[in-house]
């Protein structure tokens, strides 16, 4: 009897591990393939010889990308939008989240409702576009930084975190010491909010880096466009990468390289996220948990 139970337990474990292995491989395979193809011999990529590991070795694709003016411009713009935008997002969200966490805030209920209301009802893209145009925010270098300044959901996460994990007694003690609200926020709340700051950076940063819709609608000037817009032209609409004439010797070679260059571009475009991923992954679960405690 005991042995039978033990046996079924064993098959159960094997099944579980097999399913998980399969899921992991399915998630991983396309990524591995892209990386392999980006460093492989272009002929092998075009003829379908690359299936898992790189065939041959060449980094011409990467070299060609770095010589393309628009990709470099887009990369620089995206980095700027992401860093400046996230810094602004996180500061404004923390400030609002802290104020809302204070039970003695006069009119707290009304303000919370005022914010939550926008989560359920929105004006839609057309009227937002008209408003943005009207206030002269169309096609400016700061357009993408101001659009999406806060997400109310993130403010709620911050509020829940602060009221849930920073004891009120600490704030009261600071108040007795003569701290103003600003001082309590700056010297007590900020240093204690590191986990939620990490989550906010992750959410906002990812949003800025990957965002494409706002740029499509609100930016016209090619010099202001983020990377994702150029990626769309090259990866999805199959436009050839423009570059200085000496980058590739001939049209034939350019045609040969097209596929490899696309894969290199995917790697380069996803690099910042891949770099920060290991540092932030321990916060994922925490972020979702805080978010789900008080919707």
């Amino acid at each position, binding site marked *: 009897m005991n042995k039978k139970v033990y046996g079924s337990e064993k098959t159960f474990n094997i099944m579980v591990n097999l399913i998980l292995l399969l899921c992991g491989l399915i998630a991983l395979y396309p990524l591995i393939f892209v990386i392999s193809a980006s460093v492989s011999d272009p002929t092998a990529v075009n003829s379908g010889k690359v299936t898992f590991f790189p065939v041959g070795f060449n980094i011409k694709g990467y070299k060609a990308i770095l010589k393309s003016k628009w990709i470099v411009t887009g990369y620089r713009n995206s980095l700027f939008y992401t860093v400046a935008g996230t810094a602004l997002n996180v500061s404004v969200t923390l400030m609002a989240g802290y104020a809302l966490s204070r039970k003695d805030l006069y009119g707290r209920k009304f303000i919370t409702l005022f914010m939550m209301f926008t989560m359920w009802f929105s004006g839609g893209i057309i009227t937002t576009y008209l408003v943005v145009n009207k206030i002269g925010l169309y096609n400016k270098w700061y357009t993408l930084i101001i659009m999406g300044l806060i997400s109310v959901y993130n403010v709620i996460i911050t509020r829940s975190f602060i009221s849930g994990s920073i004891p009120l007694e600490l704030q009261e003690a600071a108040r007795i010491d003569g701290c103003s609200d600003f001082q309590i926020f700056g010297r007590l709340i900020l240093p204690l909010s590191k986990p939620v700051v990490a989550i906010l950076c992750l959410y906002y940063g990812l949003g800025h880096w990957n965002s494409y819709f706002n740029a499509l609608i609100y930016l016209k000037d090619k010099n202001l466009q983020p990377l994702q817009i150029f990626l769309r032209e090259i*990866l999805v609409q199959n436009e050839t990468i423009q570059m200085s004439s000496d980058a590739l010797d001939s049209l034939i070679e350019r045609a040969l390289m097209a596929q490899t260059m696309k894969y290199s571009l995917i790697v380069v475009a996803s690099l910042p996220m891949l770099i920060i991923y290991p540092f932030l992954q321990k916060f994922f679960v925490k972020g979702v948990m805080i978010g789900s405690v008080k919707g």
Partner: protein
Amino acid sequence: MVVINAVEVKRQAIRDNGHIHTGKKVKDMPKKKDIGIKRNRTFAQGMRHSWQLYLLLLPAMVYLLIFHYAPLYGIQIAFRDYSPGLGFSESPFVGLKHFLYFIRSPQFVTLIRNTVSLNVLRLVFCFPFPIFLALVLNEASNAKFQKLVQNLTYAPHFISTVVLCGMIVSFTSPTTGIINTFIQAFGGKPIDFMGQESWFRPIYILSDMWKDTGWSSIIYLAALAGIDPSLHEAAQIDGASRLQRILYINIPGIASTIIILLIMEFGKMMSLGFEKVYLLQNSLNLPVSEVISTYVYKTGLLGAKFSYTTAIDVFNSMINCCLLLVVNKISSKVSETSLF
């Protein structure tokens, strides 16, 4: 540092039976229970008490006012013939003209059908997988292996929609794509996936599954972690197998989370993320890939029919809202779980 100081003072105060020795006179100091407690204050008192907090809230409130409330005020142009010179509230009132025009237009049925079918397919295929993955992940016996699989399945979520669509276009290419390489290796004929409208929906759904299954499983894993372990112990003593414990403890344990997310999914039935559909759209798959959001973008912003497309937006939101309320009502009757 203030924090340490404050804690020290507090400790000292407790030691001295609540008498605080800080050198200041007691009556000069703010009231001790100032922060935690809500008092009934008059408006002026409230303002004086909270002005610093209001300053902290100011940027967020101004942002919401301009970018959420002003557009919300603007949806009245759905009932007007908007002209930029006259603005939101001065343009001539035309009643339901734009709504009727949309309902009678030849695109109406196609748009609704395309939007709803993609959403129904998403609901059927993309919704259950994260639950399944979370249940299986929860059973993993090796913690390191579990962590590894988790991180691998989260990774695709970090890829941008544009890159995802670029990968799809490259992978499905009939001449150089990896998928067709495999098909040919097994003796099949290459398929032009992006060139046939019948392949649009499978591609959309499968890529969605790949990108977000892992990420969406987090919330279920969190719910599973909240199940009382004593339930499992009791069931084990009663001789329940692992499978039985999943069926009778884990699934009922996360049922309320599932239902809440399901209701929210229904509330999005008529809206669909614009980005991915727009990126995967081409002239060949347009009959099945034109959905409400892409139509609104093309006709409204590119074609400058502002009032007409705002009417479509309003119509859309109303149906979403009704669906949400109906499903929520049904759910609260049947399972006693509801959003609000």
